[in-house]
Structure formats: structure tokens, C-alpha cells
């Protein structure tokens, strides 16, 4: 851990960190800095090229694209945050319980994970939306259901590894009950690699939200969301390609930033993890 801080800082990590932080800040304060109302239709000013009033131009309904992108950051990243919180909570409790208790409970919980892991995530998400109906909430549920098992498995593996440490044995000798052993000795070792993994997955999950919304299964128009914006712009791709470029660029940059950041975190905290987790 101490040696990790001595790793050289690379420019791309700093840039990725700044970009990721920028997206998070945008998502937080979005409406305060947006120059226009993202929903305000102004048909007199449709398809405007970038200018001083509309910095990135306007779309087919005359809505300000920059404002929609900023509002979309909140929709996309906000839902990713909810997904991550739920996935981490489920993964930590199921994986933690499985690893700490072991035995039959472990076997049952892990077979349950296997069931979820056998279905490709996007297919499971499509199936869930088919069953639950479209909408952002269902997208969130679908992504949580298709991702939590990964986290449970990884948490369980980490717990099993940490449980064999001598200091856990020493804690048992010191009379620590299982709950204290988990909270004080095991969990602090689980969190850093899990944080790296979660950061890596932010981009991946943002793609899911945007992708499902692009297909018309998630966020519904006119709510500003990057995937929805691409879908809206699809019809005008040949005449107004910039309309696709802006939200596409936003998605690409966000995914890139969080991936790079997650990579850096992983390299620093635990280079041996995740290698076997083929995506």
C-alpha cells in the first residue's frame, strides 16, 4: 500500500481523473450551469450550427444541445450511481455472507450467482425490460440483476482469501465475533479492489443505460439522456451528423475517463484481481 503511492503519476491518469470529476460535477450541479432549459422547444431555431447563444447548436426541435448534454449527464451518471450502490450492497452482503459463513449457505448462494452469470448481461437486461416494461427504473433493476452476481463472486473470493490471514486467526483468539472480524479485518481488505472494479464498471454501466435508452427501452423522450439524444439524431445523421457526434462524444469520453481511472486504481490497489473476469 505504501509502495503503491510511489508509482509514477501518468498524465493520462490525471486527465482521466479530471474528466471523470468534471462529469460528476456536471451531473451534480447540471441545472445550475446549463445555459438553457433542456426541454424548451424553439422551432424557429432548429438545426442551428454551434454559435455563441447555443454553443453546441440546437437539435431538430430547436432545443439547446449543450443544456441537454449537461442534463443527460445527471440522468445517465445518476442512474449508474444508483446501479452501483445497489450492486455493491447486494454483492457485499451476498458475497460477504457466502465467504464468511461458508458451508451449505455458500453453496446455495453461489449456485444462485451461477444462474445469473450464465445469461449474458445485455440479454438478461432485455429480458427484464420485456417482463417489467420500459423506463429508467426498470433499466436500473435490469442492470443490477445482471451485474450483482459478478460482485458477489469477487467479494466472496476476496473474503475467502482474507479469512486465511494470520491476523484473522489472531482476532478470533482475541475473542472477536464474526461480525467484528468481517467489519474490522476483512471488509477493509475487500473495499480497495472493489472500488477499483466499481470505477472500471461505471463506464460499462453508462454504456448499458445509454444503449438501452438508445433502443427506446430505457429513458423515454423528451427526457434528456445521451442514448436518447443519439436515437433522436439518428434520422438526421446524413444531413446533420453533428447531432450524433455530441452525445456520442460525451458517452465515449465518460466511458474512457472512468475506465482509465478504474485501471489506474486497480493497478495501484491490486494488480492481481479481475484478470479472470472476461467481459
Amino acid at each position, binding site marked *: 500500500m505504501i509502495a503503491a503511492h510511489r508509482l509514477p503519476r501518468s498524465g493520462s491518469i490525471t486527465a482521466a481523473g479530471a474528466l471523470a470529476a468534471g462529469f460528476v460535477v456536471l451531473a451534480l450541479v447540471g441545472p445550475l450551469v446549463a445555459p438553457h432549459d433542456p426541454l424548451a422547444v424553439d422551432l424557429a431555431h432548429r438545426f442551428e450550427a454551434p454559435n455563441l447563444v447555443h454553443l453546441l447548436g440546437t437539435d431538430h426541435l430547436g432545443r439547446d444541445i449543450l443544456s441537454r448534454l449537461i442534463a443527460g449527464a445527471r440522468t445517465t451518471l445518476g442512474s449508474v450511481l444508483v446501479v452501483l450502490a445497489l450492486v455493491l450492497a447486494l454483492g457485499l452482503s451476498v458475497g460477504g455472507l457466502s465467504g464468511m459463513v461458508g458451508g451449505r449457505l455458500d453453496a446455495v448462494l453461489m449456485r444462485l450467482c451461477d444462474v445469473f452469470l450464465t445469461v449474458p448481461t445485455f440479454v438478461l437486461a432485455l429480458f427484464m425490460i420485456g417482463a417489467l416494461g420500459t423506463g429508467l427504473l426498470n433499466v436500473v433493476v435490469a442492470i443490477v440483476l445482471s451485474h450483482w452476481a459478478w460482485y458477489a463472486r469477487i467479494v466472496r473470493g476476496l473474503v475467502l482469501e482474507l479469512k486465511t490471514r494470520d491476523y484473522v486467526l489472531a482476532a478470533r483468539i*482475541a475473542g472477536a465475533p464474526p461480525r467484528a472480524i468481517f467489519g474490522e479485518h476483512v471488509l477493509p481488505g475487500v473495499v480497495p479492489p472493489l472500488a477499483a472494479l466499481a470505477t472500471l464498471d461505471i463506464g460499462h454501466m453508462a454504456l448499458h443505460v445509454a444503449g438501452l435508452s438508445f433502443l427506446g427501452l430505457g429513458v423515454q423522450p423528451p427526457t434528456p439522456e445521451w442514448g436518447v439524444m443519439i436515437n433522436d439524431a439518428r434520422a438526421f445523421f446524413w444531413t446533420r451528423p453533428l447531432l450524433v457526434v455530441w452525445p456520442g462524444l460525451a458517452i465515449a469520453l465518460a466511458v474512457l475517463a472512468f475506465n482509465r481511472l478504474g485501471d489506474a486504481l486497480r493497478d495501484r490497489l491490486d494488480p492481481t484481481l479481475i484478470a479472470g473476469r472476461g467481459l
Partner: protein
Amino acid sequence: MTALLAAQGLGKAYAQGGWRRVPPRPVLAGIDLAIAAGECVALIGRSGSGKSTLARLLMGLEAPDEGTVLFRGAPLAGLDRGGLTTFRAAIQMVLQDPLSAVNPRHRVGRILAEPLRHLTDLPPASRAARVAKLLEMVGLDPEAESRLPGQLSGGQVQRIGLARALATRPALVILDEAVSNLDAPRQVDILDRLADLRRRHGTAFLLVTHDIRLARRFADRVVVLSEGRIVDAAPCRPGLALSHPAARELLDAVLPSGPGGP
């Protein structure tokens, strides 16, 4: 008088890996051992003789396949929550590898307070006082309390492990090769401190070691473990009279104390 800690017919076997059904490999069989209050017993045997497994069984960290461990006459398996807390507070153990036995993220003060938090009902202020006293007992500066294990030397961390085991004023401390890994001056230092503790508090010790010199220096009697069985036992004074081949082997394995020495 009932013994402080006793093993009756202890047996343990570990399952072997592999696809074919292989019978579990027996590690311990038919172990009978009793440790009285204030007594110092050395359990010696070469690597792989089952010493550490026996220590774990005696500590109740693993369940034996056969036999029982008795704490003041009561079987460990039958202890209720309160009884188990009393047992843990009374019987402590120092692990073999000092650095890996402490959580690298915890400061020394927290490490030493852990048994106090779980096994005693001392209020936080008294816990801090006890931690300071423990550091003094093992000869460490009071400032060590705010250090991380990584900032201390191996010998210092070993003394932290010892201090933790002494925190609850146990009646018996099991030292699992805990002294053997130190260099000779440190061994002497630690053993002197333990002997002092014995004199003042009547603490019993079970010294698990492969080093017969340590056993001779510190223990009242020696028990020899070989291939999972107790094969020989003898008091240390007047002279250590061991006859079993496994014991002879350990006796003969002692290096001369210096060049040209006996």
C-alpha cells in the same frame, strides 16, 4: 485438582484433495495432555509432527475429530457464550509469524485493545491504561501505541503479539514457535520477561517448539510429539531423560553453542 486445560484422546485428520476418494490423513491421534495452573510445559517435535494442529485444537480454533478438550474440567464444545468468553480470556496464544499475525492497517494501540474490547468489560479509559501497561511489560516505548506494525522491527512486532496475548491476564499462554524465530539475545530477553510473569502472576505456559534448548531453559517438563502421537514425556529437572528415538533426534540436532564448544 482439575487441570487448567486438558486434552483427552484428541484426534484430527485432514481431508486430502484430488478427485479420487482418499482417506483423510490423520495428523493427531490419541493425544492426552493436561496442563495445570502455573505450569510450564514444552511441546517439542520436528516440523510436521502435529504441534501446531494440537495448539489450534487446544485453543478451540478447530474442532477435533475425536476426543475432547477440557477447560477447567468442562468440555470446550459445551461452553455457552459466556463460558467461551471466559475461556478465550483465560487461554491465549501467540502465533508463529509475528508480522502476519497483526493487521497491517491497525495501529498498535488498537491491536492491543482488541482482546480487551471483546473479552473484558473494561471501559475505554481503563483499556488505554491497560494498553500502556502492556507496552511497558514487554519493554516497548509508550509512543509505539500510535505506530503501524510496518513501522516497527520484527522483534518489536513479536513483542506486540506477546503483549496482546497477555492483555486479558490469561491463566495460560500458548506460544506456537513464537520464540524460536527470534535471534538468541531476543529469545533470552523474551523468556526472562515470561519467567518474570510466571513468578508474579502464576501464568502457565505451553511452549510449542522444535528447539529443545528453549524447552530445557524454560519448561518444567517436556512432551515429545512425533507423527501425531505423544511418544515421550519427562520433567526437565534434574536432567532431561528422554529415550524415544524422535526425542533423541531432537536432542542430537542441537548445534554446538560456539566454535570449539561441546
